[in-house]
């Protein structure tokens, strides 16, 4: 039986309070690094753990930190990406609402490692309850000396500010988030320079996801070998899986990296609703290509899912059953990307507009011969040609739907109606 680490306090009454967090060993990791580790040693420890970013891209966290130049006269910033906009994802919200100190300790340890004295948590504006909880927790941590000047008798100063987003999915893209933090429209920046060199206010900046930062204190207290011992060596650790859609027990599940998708959906989340069959699963938020039922043995880790032609993404697992039309699902997903396109680059802005029109007419039974070839052509025109990953995610998702469920698209066009209505 797997013992939860990240969700340890989530089901506990008053899990959000500092007293609860301290009683469970909270802030011991911060005490340990400030007393026993140089910042470089913390970076090395996280490198050794093979922790990879939980926001979606899976970039090695320790390596990202090591890109921050040593010294220099510019301040360094730590930014926490708590914008959580990927449809099907709700893990960061639950951490912030129920165990905000876990994030704050992760921020402080990570800030110490990279030499940052200021952190901004960019949290989506809809998460009012999480914002309130995090504000309370920051105040508590200041009172107890876990934040502020000379933390725990050391010479480390660290402050956390909350910056509320205002409804733009693109802010999950790290450079768009930096633009937004600087008070501009959230449109991605050209890279290089990478944020580690020139990020917020052109200063060295590290951007990490909430769950990534929440892993850090546990790596400090339990060791890199413990972390690497959970799941696949190259993609290890405890992992939060968000299960939703047409499934018996939707919810947030903490399990090892790499568990089979089938086990997650069938055993932990209870499988299909009564009298129905699972048709497909989107494993990592709507940017992740859909996996048909026969592919569900795949392991839920970065490398296994990439090898299977999909991605772990944000681990937003959306279950679709046999009563649902895949053309409709694909249409809704592309409508979302079209709505959230920031408008900066043409393939994404215009391409997705075109794709939406074609998909809507197919779903309405007004599709024409040649529409599927046109969709293939549009995907080709978008994929790899957009400024950021938003357009890529849209094209990859649609390609997978067209590949695995082409017969449903064909049926819509040939029967001139949606077979599911």
């Amino acid at each position, binding site marked *: 039986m797997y013992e939860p680490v990240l969700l340890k306090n989530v089901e*506990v*009454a*008053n*899990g*959000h309070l500092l007293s609860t967090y301290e009683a469970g060993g909270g802030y011991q990791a911060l005490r340990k690094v400030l007393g026993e580790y140089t910042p470089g040693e913390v970076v090395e420890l996280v490198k050794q753990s093979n922790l990879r970013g939980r926001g979606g891209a899976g970039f090695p966290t320790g390596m990202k930190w090591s890109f921050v130049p040593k010294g220099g006269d510019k301040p360094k910033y730590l930014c926490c990406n708590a914008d*959580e*906009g*990927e*449809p*099907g*994802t*709700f893990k*960061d*919200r639950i951490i912030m*609402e*129920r165990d905000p100190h876990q994030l704050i300790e992760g921020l402080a340890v990570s800030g110490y490692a990279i030499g940052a004295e200021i952190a901004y948590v960019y949290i*989506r*504006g*809809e*998460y*009012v*309850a999480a914002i309130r*909880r995090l504000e309370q927790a920051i105040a508590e941590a200041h009172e107890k000396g876990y934040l502020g000047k000379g933390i725990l008798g050391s010479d480390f100063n660290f402050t956390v*500010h909350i*910056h*509320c*987003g*205002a*409804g*733009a*999915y693109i802010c999950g893209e790290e450079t768009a988030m930096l633009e*937004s*933090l*600087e*008070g*501009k*429209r*959230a449109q991605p920046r050209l890279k290089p320079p990478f944020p580690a060199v020139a990020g917020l*206010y052109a200063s060295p900046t590290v951007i990490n996801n909430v769950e990534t930062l929440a892993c850090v204190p546990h790596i400090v207290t339990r060791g890199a070998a413990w972390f690497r011992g959970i799941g696949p060596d190259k993609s290890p650790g405890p992992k939060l899986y*968000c*299960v*939703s*859609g*047409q499934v018996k027990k*939707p*919810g*947030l599940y903490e399990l090892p990296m790499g568990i089979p998708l089938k086990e997650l959906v069938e055993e932990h989340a209870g499988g299909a609703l009564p009298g129905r069959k699972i048709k497909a699963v*989107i494993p990592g938020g*709507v940017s992740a290509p859909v996996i048909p039922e026969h592919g569900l043995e795949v392991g839920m880790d970065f490398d296994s899912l990439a090898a299977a032609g999909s991605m772990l993404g944000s681990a*937003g697992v*959306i*279950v*679709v059953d046999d009563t*649902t039309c895949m053309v*409709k*699902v694909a249409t*809704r*997903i592309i409508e*979302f990307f079209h709505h*959230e396109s920031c408008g900066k680059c043409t393939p994404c802005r215009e391409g997705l507009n075109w794709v939406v029109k074609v998909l809507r007419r197919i779903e309405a039974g007004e599709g024409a011969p040649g529409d599927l070839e046109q969709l293939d052509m549009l995907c080709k025109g978008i994929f790899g040609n957009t400024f950021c990953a938003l357009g890529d995610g849209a094209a990859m998702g649609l390609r997978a739907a067209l590949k695995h469920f082409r017969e449903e698209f064909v049926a819509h066009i040939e029967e001139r109606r949606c077979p599911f209505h």
Partner: protein
Amino acid sequence: MSMREKIEQAAAAYPDQRSAIMPALVIAQKEHGHLPGPVLEEVADILGVERIWVYELATFYTLFHTEPVGMYHLQLCDNVSCMLCGSEKLLAHLETVLGIRKGDSTADGLFTLSTVECLGACEMAPVMQVGDDYHGDLDVARLDALLDSLRAAVGRVTGVEHVAQPLPGE
């Protein structure tokens, strides 16, 4: 605290006043309900930033409203997880009982009905945000009960949002 004081306090978190535009707009919208031109200009003046910088943020980000919204802004998620759990039926029901289409407000100014992209609460799909609060695991009966409770609360609230519900564990 006045709006100016609140904005100045929020701006202290940043080395650059431009970064404070978003937090200032949040404060101004709480104060005024929405963000008409004169309010945007006041925000620009308080922060000492270009007015165009304020306008562009107020129109880029969907949580900012330059037009008035009803006392209760019903924001029904219609992204994939909620759609799979029946959000379309809920939208149709809301349109019928309120007598408006999505995007519109009721004549009494009580309700504005919108569909929104993923609210990040898919474990309780279908979900709708009203003011600060999330309402999950909705069906037609729960939706009707919610509308009744919102109508009943009208006399008891003073601002745009109704009293926040406690989180589990409180």
